[in-house]
């Protein structure tokens, strides 16, 4: 058995090229005769465009053309599509106003494209863009999540009265009655009003695209920073560009991070494809950091009231959630899904709460559109739940650990049907909590707190027990809930004649380590050395179909498709081996790369079988096709449910309000682990992301929709010195619903860290009478909370 199979922490195959500057990113695609696009963007949050005079720009040196929204209409270019429909409680479909690729009539957020200049050089395009004259008439804006849907707020779209996109009840109207009853009977209640603030994704590589239209065969090729090349092709081709799928190739080469923001189709990609088709020349675009700040889809942005009812024993009896979710100015591809089915379905958490209901109002505002961002809906759900549980611990006088224990779904209660649609397949929550408390030295906290106090500091400890649903998604269920696509994954496993293997997958690797992990699956199952396996992703001309990488789905869905394809390889290999070994196929066994006639020492390696398949001189050609190349689709029967227990310990300088995260223990259960090192890396990244949201990140807009956090000078990202050295451990509860027993890992850290951190901060401040501080919990907000507490 070659080394590097499942369970081995092999170093990432892709890192050599990344670390030595040999990566091949979108902007590295250089084409003869290429043109450069510069996007002229609205400086206003809300403005009527008035007249648009492009004559000076069009006449500027090097300019080939200047495109406007009217040109897009004239050429039959469609708006950017939305991939998920939500039905309001009154049965009406969500408001889905057109999102033109170039603004028409009005600009609705700062950064919206109002004209595109295509020129021979990037500088010429940027120079000419300054010559486009637009008669903006600034309009009053609706930029505040909480108030956007109230009467009297400026209206953004004619199609969305009161800026309301949808008004959604879940799980069903009757659920609210059961929850009301729980509150009437409650011995204790806890309530919090909280904000899950808007954050900006910040992939290290900015978005970029290169489009090339070949008039000869009428084929369009788009290289772009995409997490899901096939979905990009489907959405752009069918809805925006009217470019037939078989005449449209989308390639997502190396991509430097996505976090969800590179799933949706973007205006810039459509614009350069369209321009390339018009001009019959390659056209490229590279986002500057400042553009990415306002145009990469943002995440979160909820204002929520959460209430929890408990009985006299501290058992949760009812949960009620009311949320206003900000969609931004237009509906990005998966925006409606996030505050609905990726959100409210997680309200049970790890607990047995029998009655749960929620209402979500999604609103349009004059801000950048929002879409999936690491966790997408699940961080928001987990945050409110884990926060209100700490508040309930206060209300009941039960310790935060104990109250969680009392309400955990027991390890022997699976499969467990939650009241919010999800059927949990497996779980062992208390074990993870026990390990986390032990590792975090929970019982020794008092001594550390005293030491901090002796030093003039305050110290707090907090826990969070997050769960998430990953592995989107069972297609049929997703379809019932509004998905406009299937959510299976595909894979092709191809033996080459000399015994090496090429895997074509519909997922995409932009930091997750697929080139290594997927190869490990092949090494493990087929016995092919790791270096003889190549994983190819992100190319619609090479992988048959794919839904891409997001929602921590790649291993459990895509990896399962690879596994299924390998089963087919083994099946066919057995037939070839039975011929070569002159035995009945039923007697052929396969293990670690070798076919054996059972009970004998007659064997043949899979490499020789592959060779025979491609050089079929001695081969059962009458019964079997040559070749050893199999394809499989995997459509999961359910989501899978990673869970964790996190313990965070903070120290606060009461004089300045500065919070420092002193310790962080994370015990994750992500099912079977293929590469422990990569899993650790994913957890580290997720925790840093989550601590970033808890303590520092936050997109701020003024009342006109002007972004106040438009650069890294004002938007705070976590850095190496923000986080402590994480203490990680894991339990393994394999997922019974996929052949690998795998669950997702990419998001759980970002989901669980914010409530763990805020619970710790509130624990430190509680002696002053503080029971909540909104994220980001900056030094200023802590200082302010302390001042207010002292004043009252």
């Amino acid at each position, binding site marked *: 058995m070659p080394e590097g199979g499942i369970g081995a922490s092999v170093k990432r195959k892709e890192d050599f090229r990344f670390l030595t500057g040999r990566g091949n990113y979108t902007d590295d695609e250089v084409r003869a005769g290429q043109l450069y696009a510069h996007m002229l963007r609205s400086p206003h949050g809300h403005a009527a465009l008035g007249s648009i005079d492009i004559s000076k720009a069009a006449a500027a040196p090097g300019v080939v053309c200047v495109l406007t929204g009217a040109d897009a209409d004239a050429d039959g270019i469609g708006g950017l599509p939305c991939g998920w429909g939500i039905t309001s409680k009154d049965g009406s479909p969500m408001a889905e106003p057109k999102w033109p690729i170039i603004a028409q009539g009005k600009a609705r957020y700062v950064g919206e494209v109002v004209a595109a200049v295509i020129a021979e050089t990037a500088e010429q395009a940027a120079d000419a863009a300054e010559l486009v004259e637009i008669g903006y008439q600034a309009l009053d804006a609706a930029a505040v999540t909480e108030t956007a849907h109230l009467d009297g707020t400026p209206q953004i779209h004619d199609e969305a009265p009161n800026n309301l996109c949808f008004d959604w009840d879940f799980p069903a109207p009757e659920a609210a009655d059961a929850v009301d009853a729980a509150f009437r009977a409650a011995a204790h209640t806890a309530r919090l009003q909280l904000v899950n603030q808007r954050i900006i994704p910040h992939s290290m590589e900015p978005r970029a695209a290169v489009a090339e239209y070949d008039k000869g065969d009428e084929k369009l090729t788009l290289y772009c920073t995409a997490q899901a090349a096939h979905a990009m092709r489907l959405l752009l081709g069918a809805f925006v560009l009217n470019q037939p799928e078989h005449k449209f190739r989308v390639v997502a080469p190396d991509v430097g991070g996505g976090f969800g923001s590179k799933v949706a189709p973007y205006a810039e990609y459509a614009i350069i494809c369209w321009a390339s088709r018009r001009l019959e020349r390659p056209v490229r675009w590279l986002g500057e950091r*400042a553009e990415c700040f306002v145009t990469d889809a943002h995440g979160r942005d909820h204002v929520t009231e959460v209430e929890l009812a408990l009985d006299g024993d501290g058992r949760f009896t009812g949960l009620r959630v009311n949320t206003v979710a900000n969609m931004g100015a237009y509906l990005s591809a998966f925006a409606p899904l996030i505050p609905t089915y990726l959100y409210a379905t997680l309200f049970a958490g790890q607990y047995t709460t029998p009655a749960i209901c929620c209402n979500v109002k999604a609103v349009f505002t004059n801000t950048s559109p929002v879409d999936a961002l690491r966790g997408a809906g699940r961080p928001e759900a987990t945050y409110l739940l884990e926060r209100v549980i700490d508040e309930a611990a206060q209300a009941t006088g039960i310790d935060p650990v104990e109250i969680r224990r009392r309400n955990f779904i027991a390890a022997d209660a699976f499969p467990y049907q939650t009241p919010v649609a999800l059927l949990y397949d497996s779980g062992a929550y208390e074990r993870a909590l026990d390990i986390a408390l032990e590792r975090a030295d929970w019982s020794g906290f008092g001594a550390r707190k005293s030491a901090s106090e002796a030093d003039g500091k305050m110290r707090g400890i907090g826990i969070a027990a997050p769960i998430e649903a990953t592995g989107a998604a069972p297609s049929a269920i997703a379809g019932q809930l509004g998905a406009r696509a299937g959510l299976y994954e595909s894979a092709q496993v191809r033996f080459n004649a000399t015994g090496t293997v090429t895997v074509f997958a519909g997922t995409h690797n932009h930091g997750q380590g697929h080139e290594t992990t997927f190869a490990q699956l092949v090494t493990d199952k087929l016995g092919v050395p790791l270096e003889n396996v190549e994983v190819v992703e992100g190319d619609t001309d090479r992988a048959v179909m794919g839904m891409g990488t997001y929602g921590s789905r790649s291993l459990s869905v895509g990896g399962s498709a690879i596994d299924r394809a390998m089963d087919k390889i083994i099946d066919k290999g057995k037939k070839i081996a039975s011929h070569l070994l002159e035995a009945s196929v039923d007697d052929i066994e396969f293990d670690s790369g070798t076919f054996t006639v059972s009970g004998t020492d007659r064997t043949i390696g899979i490499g020789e079988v592959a060779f025979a398949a491609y050089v079929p001189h001695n081969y059962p050609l009458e019964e079997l096709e040559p070749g050893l190349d199999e394809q499989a689709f995997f459509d999961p029967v359910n989501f899978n449910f990673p869970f964790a227990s996190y313990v965070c310990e903070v120290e606060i300088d009461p004089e300045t309000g500065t919070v420092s995260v002193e310790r962080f223990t994370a015990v994750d259960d992500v099912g079977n682990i293929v590469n422990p090192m990569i899993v650790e890396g994913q957890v580290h990244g997720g925790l840093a992301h989550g601590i970033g949201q808890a303590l520092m990140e936050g997109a701020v807009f003024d009342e006109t929709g002007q972004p*106040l956090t438009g650069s*890294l*000078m*004002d938007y*705070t990202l976590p850095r190496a010195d923000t986080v402590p050295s994480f203490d990680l451990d894991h339990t393994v509860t394999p997922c019974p619903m996929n052949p690998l027993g795998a669950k997702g890992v990419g998001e759980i850290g970002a989901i669980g860290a914010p409530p763990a951190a805020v619970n710790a901060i509130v624990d430190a401040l509680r002696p002053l009478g503080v029971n909540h501080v909104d994220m980001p919990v*900056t030094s*200023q907000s802590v*200082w302010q909370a302390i001042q207010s507490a002292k004043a009252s």
Partner: protein
Amino acid sequence: MYDFNYRKASSVGDAVSAVTGAEDGRFLAGGMTIIPTIKQRLAKPSDLVDLAGIDGLAGISVSGGVVEIGGMARHAEVNASAAVADAIPALAQLAGGIGDPQVRNRGTIGGSIANNDPAADYPAAVVGLGATVHTNRREIAGDAFFTGMFETALEDGELVTKVSFPVPSKAAYMKFPNPASRYAIVGVFVAATAGGPRVAVTGAGPCVFRVAEMEQALGGSFAPEAVADIKIGDGDLNSDIHASAEYRAHLVTVMAKRAVARANG
């Protein structure tokens, strides 16, 4: 970025005449401020005149109780200078807290004080130590150099050649960094100088300023308690998403107190 002419000056005189002779000429030192500004199309100079090739503009020397730092000395050089660390450790430490390693390897003291960003660190040291700014034309007292937000006493074509810092008996700088940019939200430089205690505050207001009440109190007793209860008014202070004027005013007191404690060792 707009096009501009690039020239590399061979002497101070050469640099000055190149800048004054150009339509809209600017000196280029470390480029850490001016290059990003040009890249964002917020400035459109016709000529950039690079000071990096001028002999003798970057030296650091200590003699006769004065630390002299050349206008082109990089933050990293000041931070690493044993002579500075020996004479005015607070100054070396301040330089080591500017930006990140890349910025410190490029950015210069001349560029920093000429730019006079309200949140920059060096202005606190120049005022806090009662330094003198030397230019190709004259000597300017530190107290008179910084005249307002991004404004200095420098005239067109005037070039900072060096800054001389009298060695104090003790000094310290405490910075409360902006979490995003890590410039100073509030930075307080305190020093016991021959002319009496000095307290200079950067980051909090539109321009570096001294706090007379604290200086007086420290004159009585150079101890943290002397300033711990002195509150400054927040009327003229900056306010942004990171820190309200009220919070900044509070931080001035806290940082002043901690700086005095640090100066006392």
